[in-house]
């Protein structure tokens, strides 16, 4: 909160509470997107107000959780339809993590047992300010990542994460600097068959100390149908 209760402080409070007519609410919302000081004031009022919303817990009916899980994670048979719908919505709504996934068959000279699939995918932040192209190389069980937009903030580094279906995310490795990096997939990630999820976050130098992302997660991408053989 500011040192002085000025007009902006009042506007931030009125916006957080919802006292204003529609056009003024919308104007304040737009301003918050580009004005960090104003946005921080709104966040503070939201934090203060959230304390009066501290009611006695009420256990929701079990069906509520079932419905949420069903809506977010429909059973396998419906996954492809849902994914397509999800992708369409993402593109129509301004793109969450654009998923352009192509599986190439890599024909290499040499013994045939060295041939394996190669998957490419793009990780993109919702705001579009950060983009990484990832290539998963199942011959060598490596991932090669290249930044095409954005970077870690000053004094921070990037960290790459991955997980298989219903598995907890784990660190693939740190990406301290440079446009590109090649990382060996950890054994658990190399074993994933099916949908492999990759993500990138920004972390303190040395990486997240919690074992999970602690900074901003720029985005994730699901690579479907990953397997070791062509």
């Amino acid at each position: 909160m500011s040192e002085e209760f000025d007009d902006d402080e009042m506007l931030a409070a009125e916006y957080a509470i919802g006292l204003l007519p529609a056009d003024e609410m919308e104007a304040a919302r737009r301003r918050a997107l580009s004005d960090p000081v104003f946005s921080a004031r709104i966040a503070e009022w939201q934090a203060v107000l959230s304390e009066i919303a501290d009611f006695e817990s009420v256990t929701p009916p079990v069906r509520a959780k079932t419905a949420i899980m069903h809506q977010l994670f429909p059973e396998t048979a419906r996954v492809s339809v849902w994914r397509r719908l999800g992708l369409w919505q993402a593109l129509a709504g301004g793109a969450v993590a654009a998923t352009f996934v192509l599986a190439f068959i890599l024909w290499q000279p040499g013994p045939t047992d060295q041939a394996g699939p190669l998957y490419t995918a793009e990780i993109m932040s919702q705001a579009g300010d950060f983009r990484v192209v990832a290539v998963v190389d199942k011959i060598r069980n490596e991932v090669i990542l290249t930044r095409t937009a954005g970077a870690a903030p000053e004094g921070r580094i990037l960290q790459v994460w991955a997980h298989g279906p219903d598995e907890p995310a784990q660190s693939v490795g740190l990406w301290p600097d440079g446009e590109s990096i090649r990382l060996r997939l950890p054994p658990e990630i190399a074993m994933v068959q099916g949908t492999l999820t990759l993500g990138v976050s920004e972390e303190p130098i040395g990486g997240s100390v919690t074992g999970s992302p602690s900074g901003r997660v720029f985005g994730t991408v699901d690579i479907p149908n990953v397997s070791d053989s062509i």
Partner: protein
Amino acid sequence: MRGSEDDTHKSAGAELEELISRCALGDRKAFDALYDATSAKLYAICVRILGTNAAAEDAMQDTYIKIWNNAAQYSVTGHSPMTWLITNARNTSIDRLRARREDSDLADHGDVSTGPRMTPEQSELSVSRAGRIKDCLSSLPDDRSDGIKAAYFDGYSYADLAERANVPLNTMRTSLRRGLTALWECMTQ
């Protein structure tokens, strides 16, 4: 990471923060655990705003779907995990309440402000003020504290409140602005 809360508070907050960041990576088990840890708190808010009915359940479902979909934006909001979760539940419920009233005068609250992260100094200021809002609200004249609560929990704008109290809009606005100024003064003392 965010201010100097006491140890128990910090560990519960840090745990929720970790669950949200794992949700951002598409970790379903983390989402499951986050739901189990927070749904009774968030459902209580939906019930307060919408009553015990299907609408409150629907609002809670929408809230968790937004939480899953927006988990990657969480870390840039500068909020503590509970503030982010509560504000999501409150805004989603208020939007439904207004839709039910067919009130076209008010815009959706939409998603919780995704402004940039607060500096640690700012966060510490918030923490030092934590817990004071209830005392400060009750120090206001009843009509002002009731007005602020009715706006926050029942989705009433200045215009709605003026109509309900049968007073001119300017009178209501001036009164509540005095209330907000007094509230701010109490909290920054």
